[in-house]
């Protein structure tokens, strides 16, 4: 079945695949391995680390201070992921069902912030929620509040910043999976007696689950690791994971501990990637699974 490629084409293919592997190996795999290695080394106050193996860094991750940081970060990341999901799903759905004239404009609303530097967008948010910001001015002007709300430098500001920054990462994968959806399936569910809610629950949602999971991963992980959003918008009281890792490397000069906490984050990413693969296989009805192997087994 497979077309036999000419020697030249085959060499080109091998070369480009090898190039990709080399790139990934050098700039993704190797640094992560070094990071993992450093996580098992001892701290040195003068240099970065000393080459003696230890589990102390991971033990330190179970200290109440770090667990508190981790818990706060996960909670905040989960909240912004959830809000992103709830806000993005209806929008992505409308986007997928929009007519050919409206759709490019709606898509543009997502793409423009997506392409804008997120640091700039975070600073822009200060103009919105600062003491003299648009939100306060409007609320004061309308007489809804007597004094300006203190929105800046709170958990809420960080939460709003994350939700705002990462929303496009939720919308785009959702849009991709809803757009692929066969509209006949919703018709079939209704035809078989399911109301709109149950049609969504039994047909639309399970079939767009890969998009939901992909979007959640794309929002949850950067939210968890982000350090500039909490630094710009957040208060000094609650440190988050991203800031913690950054501080270990740049402020406390404790590379091994920074490496250990960063490795935990990477591990989380791997686990979520496995989850994503699992859900997308289910939604495809085992299409991605080795079909022949299953048939042979029967």
């Amino acid at each position, binding site marked *: 079945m497979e077309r036999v490629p000419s020697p030249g084409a085959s060499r080109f293919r091998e070369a480009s695949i090898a190039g990709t592997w080399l790139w990934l190996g050098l700039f993704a795999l190797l640094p992560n391995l070094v990071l993992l290695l450093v996580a098992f080394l001892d701290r040195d106050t003068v240099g970065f680390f000393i080459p003696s193996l230890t589990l102390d860094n991971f033990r330190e991750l179970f200290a109440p201070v770090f667990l508190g940081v981790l818990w706060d970060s996960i909670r905040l990341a989960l909240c912004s992921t959830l809000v992103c999901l709830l806000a993005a799903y209806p929008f992505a759905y409308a986007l997928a069902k929009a007519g050919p004239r409206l759709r490019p404009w709606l898509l543009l609303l997502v793409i423009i912030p997506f392409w804008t530097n997120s640091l700039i967008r975070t600073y822009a948010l200060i103009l919105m929620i600062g003491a003299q910001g648009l939100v306060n001015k409007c609320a004061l002007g309308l007489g809804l509040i007597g004094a300006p709300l203190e929105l800046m430098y709170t958990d809420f500001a960080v939460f709003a910043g994350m939700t705002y920054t990462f929303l496009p990462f939720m919308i785009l994968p959702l849009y991709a999976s809803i757009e692929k959806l066969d509209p*006949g399936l919703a*018709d*079939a569910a*209704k035809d*078989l*007696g399911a109301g709109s809610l149950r049609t969504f629950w039994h047909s639309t949602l399970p*079939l767009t689950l890969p998009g939901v999971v992909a979007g959640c991963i794309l929002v949850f992980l950067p939210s968890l690791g982000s350090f500039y959003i909490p630094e710009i918008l957040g208060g000094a009281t609650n440190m988050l994971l991203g800031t913690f890792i950054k501080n270990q490397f740049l402020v406390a000069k404790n590379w091994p501990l920074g490496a250990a906490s960063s490795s935990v984050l990477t591990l989380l990413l791997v686990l979520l990637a496995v989850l994503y693969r699992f859900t997308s296989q289910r939604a*495809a*009805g*085992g299409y991605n699974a080795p079909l022949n192997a299953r048939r042979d087994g029967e």
Partner: protein
Amino acid sequence: MTTPPILELRGVSKNFGNTLALHNINLEIANGEFLTLLGPSGCGKTTILRILSGFEAPTRGAVFLNGQEITSSPPELRQVNTVFQSYALFPHMSVWDNVAFGLRMQKRPKVEINQRVAEILRRVHLAEYGDRMPRQLSGGQQQRVAIARAIINNPLVLLLDEPFSALDLKLRKQMQFEIKHLQRQIGITFVFVTHDQEEAFAMSDRVVVMNEGTVIQVGSPQEIYEEPESLFVARFVGEINVLEGDIRAARPGGTYQAEVEGVPFILHSRREFAEGETVKVLLRPEDLKVYLEQEKAQQPPFFLGTINETVYKGATVDILRTLDNGKKLQAAEFFNEDDADITYRPGDRVSVTWVEGWEVVLNAEGE
């Protein structure tokens, strides 16, 4: 009809923007009937189906199911189920879960669901396939799952939207037979949509021929084929030869003295024609009789002509030839075992006539 119709469309029209998709459709469908909506694509047959299933609302008119008006009730509240053209099986559910879906939506007890799903899967010969996912099935098997999933809810009417269009010819014939058989067994009213006249004739009790949003003719397959009321129907449901004629004189008993393509013939028709009226005489290829000129002396009347071409079709031979006045005709002959060696060659002189009374006569404006 003495018993009230199970399904009725009263004055149904449908506009999509400025386009008129359906125009004043009146249709009664009897309980247990196998009715087919037949027409070219864009004739409105699928729109009727979507109005019956509840996915479209008519712009004007009303729909009644079992005596109840259902014009504006949503699909999930109608005792009507659909077999979709693309099957629309839930790809994330096993065959079993697909079939059980309707009963689960009705919140039936588990025991009943298990029993009925098992029974219906056996009925469509898929008892062993409950655990499979739709993607692991062949087209014919997917089709059966779609049918099982629809009929398990005991609908009053089952709608089928060109369900065989994705199947190859052999499988299509087999599924036609199976569906017809199933319909007789379970006695549910079937409303079937197709653009394939052969399929419509093979399966239906009644055929509704549609064109450009209107019903052109309703009747049994035989009536539609043998007594088309318009040139459109005649042409749509098969090959037909159209001859020009003039009525010379009316005779008693529905016969007319007429001149057809310049040759005097006796025409039979239940329609009324005036003397001197121009008519069209319609003849199916298989109703024409062709004789080699030297073969045997023919009783007049007949046409004289020349063979143009013969097309071997397996069971029949199509014979294309030109009459002496330039008119082209097509005839189909079945092989006759007794004189299998009768062959026509291009250029052979022939005489042509037809079985008296098998012609259809329409007035010339009957387009």
